[in-house]
C-alpha cells in the first residue's frame, strides 16, 4: 500500500466508513443484481418474462434456439460486422490523430476535446433523425447511414481513451524519433504503437461493445428487415418475452472474456499444455462449428444489404466469409467451454482414484508414448508396464464415466481406445467387484415403449446398463439413429457411452442365424472394435455362456508383468 493511501485511509472516521460501506453494499446490489438475473434468466427462463423454471431444471434451450434461428443469425452477423468495422476504423482514425496532434498546436487539441464532449452529450434521438433525413435525401444505403452514425458515437469515446493514456507517452519521445530522422510512419509504428497498446486495445473493445449495443440510431435509421441485435430486442418488447436479451448478454460477456483471454494469452500461458491438446480441441471445434458458420454465412448472404453490382457482390461474399468465420469461432468457443475448462482447471490426481484422475491434457507422460508410437510408423514395439497401461486407461476413459459427461469422448486419441478392455476390467473390478465382461442383447421388440418415448428416458435406459461391458441393440436403422442421437454417439453404428460399448446391428438373416451384421463402421471404429473383441477373447481366462450370451471372465491378468505394447496396434503381450 502506497504511503499516500495509508495516510488517506487513516483520515476517515470509523462511523463514516461503516455508513459508506452500507451505502456501497446497497449500490453494488442494485447494479449487479440485474446482471445476475440475466444469467439466471438465460438458463432458467421461460417464455414469459418474470417467470422462471424450477431451480433444478436449467436449460440451454434458449441459447440453442437463438443461435439456430436464421433471423437471429442474420442479426448477429450484421451487428458483428458493423461493430468490428466501426471499432477498427474508429481506432485507426483516433490513433492517427492522437499521434499527429503531438506535433500540432495545443489550441487545436483543446477544440477537438471540446467537440468530442459536445458530440458525446448530444441527444441521440435528434441526431438519429437527422441521419435518417439526410440519408433519404442523398439516397444512401441503410448500412452506410448506420455505420456513419455508429462511427460518430464511437469515435469520441475512443478519443477520450487515447487522451486518458496520453501522459504515458510523452511527446518528447515522439519528437526525439523525428529529430533522429524517423519519418512519421516509422515513428508511429516503432514508438507510438508499442507504447499505446493498452489504449489501442481498450479503444477497440469499447468501440466494439458500444457499437454492438447501440439501439437509438438503429431504431430510427433501419426501415428494412435487416435488423441489428439490439433493435431486434427492442422490437420484441411485449408481454411475452423469451429470454433472448439474457442470451445476448451472456453472449456479449462471453465475447469479452474471449477477447481478454486472447489479449492476455490465458489459453497459451501454461507451460504444461502440450500442443497436441490444442490440435484436439481445434479438431473438435472445427467439427462443431462448421455447420453453424456455414448457415450463418448463408443467412447473411441471402439477407445482407449489399448491392447487385460487382462491388456489392464482392462485399456480400467477403461479408459472408468473415461472418461465417467469426460466428463459428464464437459458437465454437461456447461449445468448447467444457474442454477449455478442463485445460484451465487444475489437476488433483491420486492414483487409484477414478473420479479425481488427472485430466487428460495435464498428463505429461501421454505425449511421450504418443511420440514413440508416431516414431514407430506402424511397426515395432514399445515397452510399457502394467501401471502405465492402467494409468493411461484411466486417463483416457475416466471422462466417459464422469457424472456430467454423457456420450463419447472424441478427444481421446484413437490409439488409446485399444486399451479399453483393460480399462473396462479396472472399472468392473473396482465398482462391481467382478472381472466379468458381459454382453447384453436387446431386440427391437424387447425395448420398452417408454424407453424411447423421450431423450431423457432413452439416456436412462442406456445408462442403466453401464458397467455391463457391451450393449448390443438389434434395431431398425431409424431406431438406431434416434438412440444414437439422443445419447450422442458419433454414428448410429457404434460408440462409447458411460464407459461401455453400444453397438447397433441389423437383425440376423435367417440363413445365417449365428451372424450379426454391422451396418456401416468406418475405418477407425472398425479397427477399434476388432481390437476390442480380439483382446476380449485373448485376455479372458474363461468364457462361459449365460442366458445364451457369452460372459468373459477374469479379464485382468493376475501378475504384474511387464508388457510390450505395440502402440501402432496397441496389442500387448507378456515380455
Amino acid at each position, binding site marked *: 500500500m502506497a504511503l*499516500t*493511501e495509508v*495516510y*488517506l*485511509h487513516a*483520515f476517515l*472516521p470509523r462511523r*463514516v*466508513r461503516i455508513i*459508506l460501506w452500507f*451505502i*456501497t453494499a*446497497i*449500490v453494488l446490489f*442494485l*447494479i*449487479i443484481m*440485474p*446482471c445476475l438475473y*440475466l444469467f439466471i*434468466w438465460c438458463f432458467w427462463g421461460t417464455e414469459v418474462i*418474470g417467470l*422462471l423454471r424450477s431451480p433444478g431444471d436449467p436449460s440451454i434451450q434458449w441459447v440453442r434456439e437463438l443461435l439456430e434461428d436464421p433471423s437471429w443469425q442474420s442479426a448477429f452477423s450484421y451487428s458483428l460486422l458493423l461493430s468490428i468495422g466501426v471499432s477498427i476504423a474508429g481506432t485507426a*482514425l*483516433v490513433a492517427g*490523430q492522437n499521434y*499527429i*496532434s503531438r*506535433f500540432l498546436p495545443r489550441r487545436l487539441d483543446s477544440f*477537438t*476535446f*471540446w*467537440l*468530442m*464532449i*459536445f458530440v458525446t*452529450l*448530444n*441527444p441521440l*434521438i*435528434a441526431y438519429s*433523425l*437527422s441521419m435518417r*433525413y*439526410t440519408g433519404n435525401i442523398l439516397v444512401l444505403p441503410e448500412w452506410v447511414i448506420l455505420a456513419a452514425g455508429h*462511427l*460518430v458515437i464511437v469515435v*469520441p469515446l475512443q*478519443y477520450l481513451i487515447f487522451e486518458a493514456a*496520453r*501522459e504515458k507517452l510523452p511527446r518528447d519521445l515522439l519528437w526525439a524519433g523525428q529529430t533522429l530522422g524517423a519519418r512519421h510512419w516509422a515513428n508511429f509504428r516503432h514508438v507510438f504503437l508499442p507504447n499505446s497498446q493498452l489504449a489501442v486495445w481498450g479503444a477497440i473493445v469499447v468501440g466494439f*461493445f458500444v457499437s454492438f449495443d447501440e439501439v*437509438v440510431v438503429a431504431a430510427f435509421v433501419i426501415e428494412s428487415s435487416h435488423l441489428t441485435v*439490439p433493435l431486434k*430486442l*427492442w422490437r420484441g418488447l411485449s408481454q411475452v*418475452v423469451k429470454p433472448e436479451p439474457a442470451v*445476448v*448478454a451472456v453472449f*456479449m460477456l462471453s465475447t469479452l472474456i474471449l477477447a481478454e483471454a486472447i489479449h492476455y494469452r490465458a489459453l497459451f500461458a501454461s507451460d504444461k499444455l502440450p500442443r497436441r491438446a490444442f490440435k484436439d480441441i481445434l479438431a473438435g471445434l472445427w467439427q462443431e462449428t462448421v455447420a453453424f458458420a456455414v448457415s450463418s454465412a448463408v443467412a447473411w448472404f441471402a439477407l445482407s444489404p449489399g448491392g447487385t453490382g460487382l462491388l456489392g457482390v464482392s462485399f456480400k461474399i467477403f461479408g459472408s466469409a468473415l461472418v461465417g468465420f467469426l460466428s463459428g469461432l464464437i459458437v465454437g468457443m461456447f461449445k468448447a467451454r467444457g474442454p477449455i475448462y478442463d485445460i484451465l482447471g487444475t489437476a488433483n490426481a491420486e492414483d487409484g482414484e477414478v473420479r479425481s484422475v488427472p485430466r487428460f491434457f495435464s498428463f505429461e507422460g501421454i505425449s511421450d508414448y504418443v511420440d514413440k508410437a508416431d516414431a514407430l510408423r506402424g511397426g515395432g514395439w514399445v515397452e510399457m508396464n502394467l501401471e502405465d497401461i492402467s494409468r493411461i486407461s484411466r486417463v483416457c476413459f475416466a471422462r466417459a464415466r464422469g457424472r456430467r459427461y454423457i456420450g463419447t469422448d472424441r478427444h481421446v486419441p484413437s490409439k488409446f481406445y485399444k486399451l479399453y478392455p483393460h480399462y473396462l476390467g479396472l472399472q468392473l473390478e473396482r465398482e462391481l467387484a467382478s472381472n466379468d465382461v458381459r454382453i447384453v442383447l436387446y431386440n427391437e421388440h424387447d425395448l420398452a415403449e417408454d424407453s424411447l418415448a423421450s431423450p431423457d428416458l432413452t439416456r436412462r435406459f442406456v445408462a442403466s446398463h453401464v458397467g455391463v461391458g457391451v450393449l448390443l441393440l438389434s434395431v431398425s436403422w431409424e431406431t438406431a439413429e434416434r438412440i444414437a442421437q439422443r445419447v450422442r454417439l458419433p454414428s448410429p453404428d457404434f460408440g462409447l457411452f458411460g464407459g461401455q460399448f453400444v453397438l447397433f446391428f441389423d437383425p440376423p438373416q435367417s440363413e445365417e442365424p449365428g451372424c450379426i451384421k454391422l451396418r456401416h463402421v468406418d475405418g477407425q471404429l472398425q479397427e477399434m472394435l476388432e481390437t476390442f473383441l480380439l483382446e476380449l477373447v485373448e485376455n479372458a481366462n474363461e468364457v462361459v455362456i449365460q442366458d445364451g450370451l457369452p460372459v468373459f471372465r477374469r479379464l485382468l491378468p493376475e501378475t504384474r508383468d511387464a508388457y510390450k505394447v505395440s502402440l501402432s496396434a496397441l496389442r500387448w503381450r507378456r515380455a
Partner: protein
Amino acid sequence: MRSIQRVLTVALGLAPIILIVGLFVLPLLIWMGGAHVQALSRVSTGSLYLSLITKTVLLSSLAALLAVLMATSVAFLHAFSGVHVRHALNSLIMIPLLVGFLARNYAWLGLLRSMAGSGGSINLYRLIGSLLLYNNRGVVLVMATVFIPFSYFIVLQGFSSLRPEMYEAARTLGASDLRAHMVVTLPIIMRSVILAFGLCGVLALGYFVTPKMIGGGQHDFIGNGVLTLLNKLGDSAGASLLALYLFGTAILPMVLLAWYSVHRRTLLLGD
C-alpha cells in the same frame, strides 16, 4: 511531395473534426433546415413538447442526482480505502457495462415483474415490486443504476486531487475529521460531482428505452413522443420538430458542459 505530406499530416490531425463536421454537424444542419420549413404548419407539436418536457427534465434530473449521490458514496469509500478494496470496487462497478444497456433494462423488467407478481400475502418483496413497476419511481431508479458507473469514474477523478497533507494541516489547526471533510473534501470533489450530474442529466434527456420498458408507456419522455409520432402515427415532420425542440433544450447545457470539461480536463481523464 513535402507539401502533400504536410497536407496529409494536417488532415490526419484534423480527422476527428472532419468526421464530426461531415457526419454530425452537416446532417444536423440539413435536418434542421428541413424541420424548420415544416414548423409553420405544426402547432400541436409545441403543446406535446410542453406536456412532456417538464416530466422529462424532472425525472432526468432526479435520476442524475440519485446516480451521482450513490456514485459519490462509493467513490468516497474507494478514495479512503486500501488497494484491494479499490480494485474490487472498480471491477464490480464495471460489470454492468459488460452486459449491455437493453439487457439490463430487460433484467429490471423481469425482476420487478417477478417481485410484483409473487404470490401470498403482502410482503416487502411484493410491495417493492408494485411500487417500482410501471411507475416513475422505477424509471428514476433504473436510470440511476444505468448512470452509476459513468458518474463513478468521473467523480473518482475529483478524489484523486486529495492529499493527506491537507488533512494533517486541518488536524494541526484543531479541526475534527468531520469538519476537515466538510471544508476540504467536499469543495474539491464538488466540481467533478457537478460535472457528473450535468453529463448524466443531459444524457438522460434523450432516453426513451427505460421510460418505455419500466414506465410501461405511462411516463413517457420526449424521446418516446418522437418514436410514437414517427412509428405509430407516421408523422415524421412532427417527430422531427419534437426532436428539434429537444435538441434546442439540450444545446445550451451541452455547450456549457463541454466548455467546463475542457477547462477541467483532469476531472474526466485523471492526472
